[in-house]
């Protein structure tokens, strides 16, 4: 059962007696009295306390509760060392414990006696004396109203130590919804521990990232709209997103078309015609494919749609930059580099080839692709297969001197967490053993970047860029592995623009990574323009612009269906009419195909 409690220990008692002093010094056992609420012997604790170096928060993940001769102890070397050096005489050592009987986090804080008397003077109804507060030796405080009052006061005194931002993040209503949905995919008993484990990992990682010596760190953004917008006045920023039209009533035909929208804007420019530029690039997928190079099976429509969308978005972005080389930065809604290992021409997806004619029209030919992308398989060369073209486009984007950025609304994978763990281990911020233990927890609880960094980061903070590998060669077909190896590894950072919302992931090409501080600031300020949604507003605008509304798809569907039926009727062949009607009537759950009751 998940509960919160305080154990208040008198500082004099803690260090005063011979027995306690010996256990602290020799056995790293910090006494907390004869009881510890619902915590069991062996309960895993994450201990957090403020070190003597001002502002340094220490998070120790290997602590546990130990019962010895009917007395409870917190076994933690770091904490014991810290307490031995502290002057605790006349003070109270407060242990705030949050979690279940076997898994909890514990914040240790030292309070002056006035802390309690001040609180009681504000809220006399608390009647501390009735609860043996201040403690003579050690007192377990479980009464909810006392725990709440103490937590409120203590967290206000030191919000960093109590990680108030993480609590607020996990308690935000829309995060709770996502949290519950996440918890449904896990075993029930792990549900209970999930928030505590996330917080514990977040606190450890935050402490690790704040450790001097780590190249990857938490950056701070100072909120100043005036500075930001005056800095970029008159400069062009472009936002790109794609939308897909589905033809619901014609099964098997989707995707039929997609369009990529570009919203380009120059903040601070007066004249609307010079300030904003909108362009829409529609593509009919059938027209883009190479009719001369057929595959044994039809392409998986969903995969073809994804491959087309990722490719055409990147292509449109490059075309826009070719037309507007003065662009200060281009932002794409979604990842900059997608996981593209499985869009090859083989089974099961059979993703086809792009028409050379189409590619030539936009200045792409076999020579250019083969020069840029080595070891393209096939005889003749599969240079115009989506995987090769995507590699070509991605390399162009990576080499582009203009910052190009992909922004992912909710980073649900673990790419950044994994990269950060690897990096911190390489930098010896923690050991391989810790990394292994942490990754085990992350996998066990299916902890994703959004939840973990949602707890780690505060509003206005970002994780500095770290290279992430989106395309693992092992997942690719052997003949495509050399090409997949050439997909660029974008630099990713996570930016949190609002305390009670998920951070968004930012993937950058090399030019953007060089100015990552500016990119983070720009994205933060554009996201602040959508305070609750907490996503860069330019991308929200282009998302709406490019999205093919359902009513439009529906309209096209109805019109296509009617046209198809009319043509069938015009043939005068009743069998054809009947076939077309059946085809049009088919749907994912059609009553025509429902099993009949006997």
């Amino acid at each position, binding site marked *: 059962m998940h509960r919160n409690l305080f154990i208040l220990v008198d500082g004099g008692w803690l260090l005063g007696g011979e027995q306690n002093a010996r256990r602290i010094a020799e056995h790293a056992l910090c006494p907390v009295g004869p009881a510890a609420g619902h915590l069991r012997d062996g309960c895993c604790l994450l201990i957090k306390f403020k070190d003597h170096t001002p502002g340094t928060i220490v998070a120790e993940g290997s602590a546990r509760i130990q019962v010895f001769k009917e007395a409870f102890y917190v076994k933690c070397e770091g904490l014991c060392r810290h307490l031995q050096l502290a002057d605790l005489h006349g003070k109270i050592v407060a242990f705030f414990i949050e979690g279940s009987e076997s898994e909890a986090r514990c914040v240790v804080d030292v309070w002056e006696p006035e802390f309690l008397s001040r609180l009681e003077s504000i809220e006399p109804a608390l009647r501390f004396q009735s609860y043996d507060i201040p403690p003579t030796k050690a007192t377990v405080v479980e009464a909810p109203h006392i725990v709440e009052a103490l937590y409120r006061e203590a967290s206000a005194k030191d919000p960093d130590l109590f990680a108030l931002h993480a609590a607020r993040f996990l308690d935000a209503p829309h995060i709770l919804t996502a949290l519950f949905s996440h918890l449904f995919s896990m075993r029930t008993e792990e549900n209970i521990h999930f928030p505590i484990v996330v917080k514990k990992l977040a606190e450890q990682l935050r402490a690790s990232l704040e450790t001097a010596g780590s190249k990857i760190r938490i950056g701070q953004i100072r909120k100043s*709209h005036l500075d930001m917008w005056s800095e970029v006045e008159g400069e062009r920023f472009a*936002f790109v997103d794609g939308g897909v039209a589905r033809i619901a009533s014609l099964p098997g035909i989707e995707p039929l078309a997609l369009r990529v929208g570009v*919203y380009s804007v120059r903040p*601070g420019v007066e004249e609307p015609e010079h300030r*904003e530029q909108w362009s829409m690039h529609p593509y009919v997928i059938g027209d883009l494919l190479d009719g001369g190079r057929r595959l044994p099976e039809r392409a998986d429509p969903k995969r073809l749609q994804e491959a087309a969308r990722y490719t055409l978005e990147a292509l449109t972005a490059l075309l826009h930059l070719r037309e507007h080389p003065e662009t200060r930065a281009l932002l794409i809604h979604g990842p900059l580099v997608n996981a593209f290992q499985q869009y090859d021409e083989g089974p099961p997806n059979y993703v086809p080839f792009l028409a050379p004619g189409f590619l030539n029209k936009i200045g792409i030919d076999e020579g250019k692709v083969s020069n840029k992308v080595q070891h393209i398989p096939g005889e003749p060369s599969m240079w115009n297969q989506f995987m090769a073209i995507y590699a070509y486009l991605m390399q162009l984007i990576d080499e582009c001197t203009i910052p190009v950025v992909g922004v992912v609304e909710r980073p649900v994978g673990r790419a950044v967490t994994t990269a950060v763990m690897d990096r911190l281990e390489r930098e010896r911020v923690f050991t391989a053993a810790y990394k292994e233990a942490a990754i085990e927890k992350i996998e066990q609880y299916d902890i994703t970047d959004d939840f973990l960094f949602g707890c780690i980061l505060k509003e206005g903070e970002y994780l500095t860029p770290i290279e992430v590998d989106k395309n693992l060669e092992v997942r690719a077909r052997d003949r495509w592995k050399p090409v997949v190896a050439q997909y660029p590894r974008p630099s990713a950072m996570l930016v949190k623009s609002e305390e009670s919302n998920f951070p968004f992931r930012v993937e950058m090409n090399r030019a953007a990574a060089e100015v990552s501080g500016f990119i983070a600031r720009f994205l933060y300020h554009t996201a602040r*323009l959508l305070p609750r949604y907490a996503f860069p*507003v330019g991308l*929200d605008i282009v998302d709406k*612009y490019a999205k093919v509304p359902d009513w439009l798809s529906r309209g096209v569907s109805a019109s296509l269906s009617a046209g198809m039926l009319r043509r069938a009727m015009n043939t005068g062949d009743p069998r054809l009419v009947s076939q077309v009607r059946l085809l049009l009537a088919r749907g994912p759950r059609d009553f025509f195909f429902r099993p009949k009751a006997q």
Partner: protein
Amino acid sequence: MVGIHVGTVVGNTTPQEYRFFMRNYAAKLGDLVYTEMDVPSPAGSDREALTKERVAVWGRIVELGRFNPFLPAEAGQELAEERLELRDTVLSLSRDQVEGKVLVLGATPMGDFKRMRPLNYPVSPGGEVLLPPAESVKTILTGDEDAPRLKLGTLIGRSNVEVRIKTSPIVARHMAILAMTGGGKTVAARRIIRELLTLGYPLLILDPHGDYLGLYTRRDLFPSRTVRLYYPNLRVKSENRDLVGYLVSQMTQGFSDAQRDRYDEALEKVELRSEVGLDDFLQLLVQKLDELPKGSHPGTVPAVKRGLRIVRGYIQQMGKSNERLRQQASLQQFPFEPMPDPLTNPAGFVRPNQASVLYLGGYDHLTQSTIVSIVLKQLFEHRASMSNAIPPFLAVVEEAHNFIPSHSEGQADTPSLEIIRKVITEGRKFGTGLLLVSQRPSRLDETALSQCNTFMIFRLVNPRDQSFVEKVMENLSKDDSRLLPGFGPGQGIISGQAVRFPLIIQVEHDKELEIAAIGDENFLEAAERWSHSQEAAATARSEAMISELAESARSS
């Protein structure tokens, strides 16, 4: 007809209305627009030979909404808090969309806009919405009738399209002009009066404030027409000898049976060889009452005399007040005449080429109502008796809420209510029309108002007035009534038999018919002038003398 493209029909349509997306700045609220489409041909009832016909579907823009789907409302909060200008950020300014609703008015065959009929087929989605050329609008407004028309003004926003309304429904089937103060009701009434007077139609104007005296000042605008100005002058003769009894019943609590008997006895004794003024007649009556033998109830005669005194007091006081008003400097130029007797000399009021203005200033509502009831009743009876003593005429009733108040006002016994109700229900048969003008529609008698066949509604802000107007006017849509609070002076909606369909108009302002003396008085200046007047000096002198007296009393 080549119209200007303003938008495209979208969404679900009906034969009554449709929505459209509009090009920015292409049209305005209230504009007449059309869209071309095919409808089943009227002749195509035979299912085997379905035919269709190309028509222009006419409509009026009754709703316009503007939104920028790319400008999230949430951003407004941050912009406000940070005092940021939108254009300094990456937010979009340029993608406004204007969506409108059009109320369908009817359809005409292409090329023949005079024949309008109801649309009986839904408007075609995707159709082009067009702004018609001025000539086509004029044709559509007038239709194929050649009957005389009154020029009212222009369409709002299309000053090149004149609005001319049919005359006959106004003069015979009654019209109401409703607006809050300053909305333009008097301007509109004056416009109609001017047009009717130009046509030579007989007019009787019941004018409590002198708003129509300008007709006389600018009589040069109406050659060979006469404008006569009257003030109330009740006279008694043998035919209307019970006038006093009527006045007593309206102005006091009336007579008891016993008092009525004594009054009748006195009335019998009065010999009327010729007509006498009301005041003289009242004196005569009092004299005859004194002469009556004392009865068993000695208090009855004094009670009757008291009633007569009250009526006499009222009439004298208000007559003087009216006289003072007429004699003030600004009105001295007007040759007011005592009003003719509507019973014996109705032609004094009503005759072709004449507008008679009965100036009721100075009289209270009750007396005004009494006078109006007497005049209207007798004139209408002349028409109803088919005596041909007077021609058909139109009576303009300003401040109509004082003459036909609603039940809720608790003035069911207002003298003029009954006769106006009668005229409004039966007047059409006898060529007696009413033009009711009021600033408080909700205080008007609903029965009387609903008999009006044409309505002109200007700015109305009071929600009670708005909902009352909606209730009374059958063809005022919800969308139209939402326009009412936003109208500027002289802007309004006209609906009913005088027009083919409701129109939003700007009434032409006949400034030359206004007299600066009334309505535009500069009271600041007047107050300043008063401080230098003889009256001010007398007041100051008196106050000084009073204080001197008080001082001397204290010192003694």
